[in-house]
């Protein structure tokens, strides 16, 4: 089908199936749908929209049709994405299965594994979470120690994962485990799929400095996992993990972008006031705001530039590390400035007059922007080594 024809079809479909309420910006968690056995729909509109998309396989538009995916070409996929953006359609399904496990299965999984797991992801029947970091293995992810000891055609898994988002909601987890301790630590890691209902798996939510969070700790106590659940080869899980980490980094840099572009001068003008010439009363705060806005704009245009360069066939490579770093630091500075601009109410933690401490909590939460998904220090290391070619 020609792209123009396809575009028409898409628009007709979206108009019919994505009702007005599903085209409003997502305001909180309850506006999203993550699937899995614990999921419920917020309302009929959400349910209708999800099923319409899942049936066409458009929850994963470019995945192969044989697994239930949309089977669209890259170009057709872009058309669909653009039209959804243009109409403001909410994503019908949020899923670590779609963002992370799926790409790994498509690249490293066996045909049996794809057939087993992809349909459940596409139809939103199985909700996945990610088990990478451990208390002793953060920046040094390869230092992980959750052990998977061979026992016939099973592994016995013992250890603890941390920062497993929504582990308490998920059906299954894809986890990095250590199957060999004898050689270089990057070797001996195995990428393993584990059902959260298996005996010995338990989770505990993590409270952050900003309050409640989707993060959990996940514990494995003599958990039996079939060896058929290894993705890629035994001891070769690091290759799979690295592939997915690049994915994650690009998506985090992108995520902070939208927030970065709200002009901070807006808050300042209303809370600090302006003189008769329209100049901010606090001239010293003003110059710091201007510096921030200059940097934020420069960053925004850099994201645009990289997008264009990628389209023109240039590789972005380790630049995703720079974006992650710069975007994270910008967002942290933004919230420091917001507290200074807004003063009193932005410092309150509870109470209705303060929207439940929204700004203060967001402020605290931004401090994690330079830690999660690879710390700023790790990103700078990557830039130094892989872009600038500086030696270890």
């Amino acid at each position, binding site marked *: 089908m020609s792209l123009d024809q396809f575009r028409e079809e898409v628009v007709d479909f979206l108009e019919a199936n994505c009702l007005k309420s599903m085209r409003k910006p997502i305001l909180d968690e309850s506006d999203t749908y993550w699937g899995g056995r614990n999921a419920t729909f917020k309302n009929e509109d959400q349910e209708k929209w999800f099923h319409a998309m899942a049936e066409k396989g458009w929850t994963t538009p470019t995945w192969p049709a044989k697994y239930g995916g949309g089977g669209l070409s890259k170009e057709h996929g872009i058309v669909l994405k653009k039209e959804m953006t243009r109409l403001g359609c909410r994503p019908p399904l949020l899923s670590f299965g779609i963002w992370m496990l799926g790409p790994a299965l498509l690249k490293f999984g066996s045909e049996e594994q794809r057939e087993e797991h992809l349909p459940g992801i596409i139809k939103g029947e199985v909700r996945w979470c990610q088990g990478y970091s451990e208390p002793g293995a953060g920046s040094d992810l390869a230092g992980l120690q959750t052990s998977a000891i061979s026992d016939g055609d099973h592994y016995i898994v013992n250890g603890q994962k*941390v920062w497993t988002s929504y582990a308490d909601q998920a059906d299954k987890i894809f986890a990095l485990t250590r199957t060999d301790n004898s050689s270089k630590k990057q070797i001996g890691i195995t990428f393993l799929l584990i059902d959260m209902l298996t005996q010995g798996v338990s989770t505990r939510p993590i409270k952050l*400095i900003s309050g409640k969070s989707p993060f959990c700790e996940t514990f494995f106590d003599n958990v039996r996992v079939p060896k058929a659940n290894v993705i890629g080869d035994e001891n070769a899980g690091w290759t799979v993990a690295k592939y997915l980490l690049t994915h994650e980094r690009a998506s985090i840099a992108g995520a902070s972008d939208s927030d970065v572009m709200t002009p901070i001068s807006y808050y300042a003008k209303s809370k600090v006031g302006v003189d008769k010439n329209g100049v901010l009363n606090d001239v010293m705060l003003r110059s710091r705001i201007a510096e921030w806005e200059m940097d934020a704009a420069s960053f925004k245009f850099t994201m645009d530039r990289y997008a264009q360069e990628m389209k023109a066939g240039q590789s972005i490579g380790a630049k995703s590390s720079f974006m992650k770093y710069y975007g994270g630091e910008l967002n942290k500075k933004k919230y420091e400035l917001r*507290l200074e601009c*807004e003063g009193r109410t932005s410092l309150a933690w509870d109470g209705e007059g303060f929207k439940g401490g929204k700004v203060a909590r967001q402020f605290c939460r931004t*401090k994690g922007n330079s830690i999660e998904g690879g710390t700023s220090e790790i990103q700078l290391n990557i830039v130094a080594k892989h872009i600038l070619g500086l030696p270890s």
Partner: protein
Amino acid sequence: MSYVLTEEQEFLKSSAKDLLKEAPVALVRELRDNQNELGYSSDLWNAMVEMGWPTTALSEDLGGLDFGLKGLNILMEECGRTLSNSPLFSSLLAGLVIQKYGGQSHKEVLTKAVSEGATIAIAIQEGQHYQPKNNGTSVIGGAMSGSKTMVADAHVADHFLVSYNTDNGVEVVLIDAKSQGVSISKEFYMDSRFYSTVTFDQVAVDEKEVLSAGKGKSVVSYITNCASILISSELIGLMTEAFERTIAYLKERRQFDKVIGSFQGLQHRAADLYGEIEVAKSIVLKAVDALDENDIMAPALCSMAMAKTSKVAKTATNEGVQMYGGIGMTDDEEIGFFLKRARVAASLFGGYTYHLNRFAKMSGY
């Protein structure tokens, strides 16, 4: 001027450390999690009162210990190290102001308050920011109306020092908290402390209760100076403790088969921060001394001290969370309490840009 402590001052410091062992950061967490109505431990406050802390800077004729601001610098620094909360801050500030500008009746209220542990809270700010020149509170026909924000310790105060506007500028008056027309709305903040919005609705003002009538501008400026000393001293304690904990963590946490404190990228940042804390300490000590000695440069130095400590406290707590990494983001770890207290403390009685601007103006540019 002396940067080195005398024996008496050393003794004050070590007795403060001793008492505050009873009030570790864990106590802040406990008070928060139990939704304690005061936001502080009344046992701790009683112990402070018993030891005469509220009288530390007062002269002997007011029953005080006569340590001057230097003594308060020592106490507040120690309070900053454990993030200890109590009505001490308001007590000390009110004491300084009444000692300098109060009449006989104010001094009677003060001496009674400091001996019994009663609180006199300072109600100056209005709206979002500390801008004492923009005063919407006024007295018409002997009745004061207006609304003050971010009033520390208002929920336990027996009295308020309140600023209001007149045709000839600002004045500051002592108001009984039980007066008709005073209402208090207690709010819970990021630093796990309560601040209140205090509303005065046609509250009767006794002109005798005005501090140094006609000199209100000086009174307010002195409040700003003293608050700067108290808060910047607290911030020195806060940043020093946060920094020491961070350095300890750098020596303990291992990644890539090394202690992370061995990475030069972190070492250089830690060393730079060490230096910033060193210079912040000095400017605070200088400002303390200048205000104790009525030096003409004192107000500019107080603002420099407040601006510098706000800035460095933010850096120190940010670096703390960053260097702790993921664990620093969890509520289980205490470094986040330092981060949060630093932000609120650095906004009370004028934040970074307020004081930097005040200093620049005083320096004639």
